């Protein structure tokens, strides 16, 4: 029996010739990370267990991105604890304000994660790196503590589910719409404990940014990881960037899948996930009656340069609706600089949107854009649970950058066509 990409990567990391779904393995990690919410507890546990060394100071990144720039004294203490731990153990992949970005945008951009890797992160959206052909999954702080100390982590080898997506996408439909459509079909636990493998002609044509968006939200279907086979797009992205040698891995023709889903790309509209689950999806064009108070464009899901270009395409020459606050958050310093140099900030400022420093901030109701009771946001982030962005009586509608920007202009959920965006020549 052949193996899937996920099984091959895990077999290699476990030092085995093969693994099967359901098998429990100890795997060596190529890279591990934590953030300002999870790393402090990992450090506490590391110290409490009496460890006095890290397995490899080059293979650990501690990224203070959630509540930074420090939102309060307690947060400042957490980040200080991370900073001191990294100094003590010579961990140089610690990035403070001015260098930091949203972790799952920053690590691929810096080439710290790449094809064939096993990556664990004490953050559920660590699955983002599957876009590059890595096995990457979220864990808790104690798992991170163990990995920092020993370089090992336990896994139950997941079954794989295959998503075959074929054909051309309708105008403005991107990776975000594909993954919201997918979660709408599977439900929020439709891929529980499983690997989601994405393939097909549509996937072949997707940018790295769209693939990162799709893999990012695999966890919202309950999955352990999302994964894409590396192709020329991947290779071009990691070339000269990835700090290790890429290990390109492909599923065998006779690999076993628990389920195979097939989507026609042409059937996927511009999508929105309504409160309070990412699976509660509906076509954006059917939701014009939903009036909104805030738009957030950013996050580990959609805060990359391509996302900001999409938002600018809609906002160019337009004004944000007078009843709406529109917050644009480039996910890293490099994205920030590129957006500035491309003139996107001029577009956002003319439209009367605000541009923030890189931070997870409002996505998790941390800071920099919290909702009051009864308020509604359209957000390019990944979760719309009760109270996710602020008051438990507020609401979050998830969408991609095109719908978010169009909604900012309209003052209600809208598509680019509905606010008169003229499609740039392809």
């Amino acid at each position: 029996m052949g193996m899937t990409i996920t099984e091959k990567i895990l077999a290699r990391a476990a030092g085995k010739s093969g693994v099967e779904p359901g098998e429990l393995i100890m795997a060596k990690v190529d890279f591990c990370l934590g953030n300002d919410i999870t790393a402090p507890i990992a450090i506490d546990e590391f110290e409490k267990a009496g460890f006095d060394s890290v397995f490899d100071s080059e293979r650990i990144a501690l990224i203070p991105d959630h509540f930074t720039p420090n939102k309060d004294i307690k947060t400042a203490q957490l980040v200080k604890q991370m900073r001191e731990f990294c100094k003590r153990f010579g961990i140089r992949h610690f990035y403070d304000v001015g260098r930091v970005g949203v972790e799952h945008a920053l690590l691929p951009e810096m080439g710290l994660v790449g094809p064939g890797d096993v990556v664990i992160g004490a953050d559920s959206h660590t699955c983002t790196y599957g876009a590059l052909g890595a096995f990457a999954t979220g864990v808790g702080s104690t798992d991170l503590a163990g990995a920092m100390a020993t370089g090992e982590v336990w896994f139950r080898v997941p079954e794989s589910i295959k998503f075959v997506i074929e054909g051309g996408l309708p105008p403005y439909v991107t990776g975000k719409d594909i993954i919201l459509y997918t979660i709408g079909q599977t439900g929020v636990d439709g891929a529980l404990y499983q690997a989601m493998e994405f393939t097909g002609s549509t996937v072949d044509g997707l940018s790295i940014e769209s693939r990162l968006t799709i893999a990012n939200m695999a966890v919202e279907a309950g999955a352990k990881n999302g994964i894409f086979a590396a192709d020329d797009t991947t290779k071009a992205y990691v070339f000269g960037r990835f700090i290790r040698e890429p290990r390109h891995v492909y599923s065998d023709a006779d690999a076993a899948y628990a389920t195979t889903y097939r989507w026609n790309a042409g059937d996927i509209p511009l999508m929105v996930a309504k409160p309070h689950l990412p699976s509660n999806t509906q076509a954006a064009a059917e939701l014009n009656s939903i009036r909104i108070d805030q738009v957030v464009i950013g996050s580990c899901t959609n805060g990359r340069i391509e996302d900001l270009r999409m938002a600018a395409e809609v906002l160019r020459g337009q004004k944000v609706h007078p009843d709406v606050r529109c917050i644009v958050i480039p996910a890293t310093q490099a994205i920030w600089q590129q957006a500035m140099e491309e003139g996107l900030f001029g577009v956002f400022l003319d439209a009367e949107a605000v541009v923030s420093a890189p931070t997870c901030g409002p996505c998790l109701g941390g800071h920099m854009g919290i909702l009051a009771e009864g308020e509604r946001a359209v957000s390019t982030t990944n979760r719309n649970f009760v109270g996710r962005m602020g008051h438990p009586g507020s609401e979050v509608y998830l969408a991609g950058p095109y719908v978010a920007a169009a909604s900012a202009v309209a003052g209600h959920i809208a598509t680019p066509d509905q606010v008169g965006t003229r499609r740039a020549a392809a």
Partner: protein
Amino acid sequence: MSATTASGGDAAVGGGGATPTGAGAPIQGRAWTFGRDVDTDLIIAARYLNMKTAEELAAHIMEDADPDFPQKVQPGDILVAKENFGCGSSREHAPMAIKGAGIPLVIAKSFARIFYRNAFNTGLPILVAPEAVDGITEGDTVEADLATGVIRNLTTGVTFQADPLPAFMRELVAAGGLLPYLKARVAG
């Protein structure tokens, strides 16, 4: 040896039953019932994640589901939920808040995978028992034997069997939690 815990709160768990197989006496408590997809933002909202002790977090447990829940829940009470309990973020603050509130056990039809890991890694007992969940009403008194997985609804008199623990999870528990397990591996 009890499982490694993120911080205090074990004293409230009682009976030494802080490990998922729990060598101690059966756990007995009053049930609080929840639906499916209880996410970690609901268990402990992100606005409290600038704190990291079980006591501080327990003061806000399930607050966005019911603002009075932190006051209503009593040490020894048990959480009972439908599918996908603990979905969402990887925050270990969620099992910490539960333990901090003195809740000795969560029974669910299924658990989201990171929450499942975190529960074992930090020593919060959990049982997967779909039939028991259907057979428990809020306020019922429930008794659970972690060693055998037998769950008794003392209010109705009905007995249920939880799914057995995978062998590896038993090994983790026997070692006293994830970090002692890994430490022994490295030393070995």
